[in-house]
């Protein structure tokens, strides 16, 4: 992988195709059509699955424009002190 475009495509696929997402989580090599995956690829798959999960949280959080502002912590944006 290591290709940003491919990574984004895989995130979209995992988000929109539950079977692929499950396969990516349980049999990543099979999901990607590879014989086996290396450590770097495993890290990238972990990132993809975490991103998809984060988007699920965003969907559930219902940002909208209400007083409760449930989504304030849905996006784990980290910033450093000025």
């Amino acid at each position, binding site marked *: 992988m290591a290709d940003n475009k491919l990574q984004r495509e895989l995130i979209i696929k995992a988000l929109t195709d539950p079977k692929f997402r499950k396969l990516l989580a349980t049999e990543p090599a099979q999901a990607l059509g590879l014989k086996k995956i290396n450590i770097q690829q495993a890290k990238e798959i972990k990132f993809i699955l975490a991103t998809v999960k984060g988007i*699920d949280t965003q969907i559930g*959080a219902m*940002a909208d*424009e209400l*007083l409760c502002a449930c989504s304030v912590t849905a996006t784990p944006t980290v*910033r450093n002190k000025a």
Partner: protein
Amino acid sequence: MSVLEQSEDNQQALARVELLVATTWDCNLRCSYCFVGNRGLAKNVEPMSVLAACQIIDVLDEQFSDVETVCIHFYGGEPFCNVPAMRTMVERALSKSKDKFIFAVTTNGVSATPEVMDLLDRANFGVVVSIDGPPDIHNECRKDKAGKSTHDRVMKFIRDLREKTSCRVRGSAVVRSGWPLAKAVSYLKSLDVDTIKSQAVRTAGAMSYSLNIEEREEYLADLEKLGVQIIEDIRHEKQPRDDRFTSRVFQLLKNEPRQRFCGAGTTMFGITPDAQVLPCILLDAANNSLGLVNDREFREKGRRWVENHPIEKKCSQCSALPLCGGGCPAMMPFCGDSECDIVRKNCDVARMIYQQFKNEPEKLLVLAGM
């Protein structure tokens, strides 16, 4: 079943719940349009004690043992009016499983002490700070108990947050008569904050600050213009600071109808200063209590509350239902059709944004910060 519960990797563990906690109903401000005050949600209840704060975290830790992340969102009242309870909850929560508890606060920012700033930074809070607009707009409605203006103090709070903490900051403005959405958004964008939100004042019936018919039309038109700006942001791979449409755009991408408007009663609860649990802190306790925290029955009672509050029949014919899920249970009885107009427009704009990128969905990932 909620959207969260439906997701593949959440079958065993619920990803996240949010508790909106009012450690006090007291507030140091007297805002003319206060939803909590004007709706009579703030009763004469003593502030939460340190002991109760400690026990609440213990029960939450136990009752949400199947949940990966528990967000304690301090609400109120003004959370900084009861720092001892807030500090106790944070410190107790941080003593539990690593990263299980995360924290947010909705505050007017007027009375933050160095101790508060340290707490916010230490626990990596997400901070929602209320600031309506420039001094004349803000100070007209947001005065302290003594009737003094507060804008300068809020601006200092925002500067201090940026200089002394790593907190994520969301600026929040109330749109009211004479102060349109477009101007509120423009003002919030001028501030040093990460994200922004601005919403029409919620009132039952006409008040002096309510939007009139023309202003409501302008508000809906401004929502559409905001959607057009967000499309431009996405095209330029820039994450929009106003994220009100994000959840629905992703929902469209996932092609998953929303079963409920929000997680009230299942993935979201409110806790009052006297430790009552509600499906949402903005619902009145007299009609919606799920018992005391210590009863340890609120999740089951929450499920029953959801079952007993099905989507209204009038919603079944609404085109927005798959994206709306039946409307906010706290606002709908209070604001009625005017609330529906806004939610429906938000749904329409989310569709407009999604349609622009339907054939290149990867571009939408910028909404998730990618």
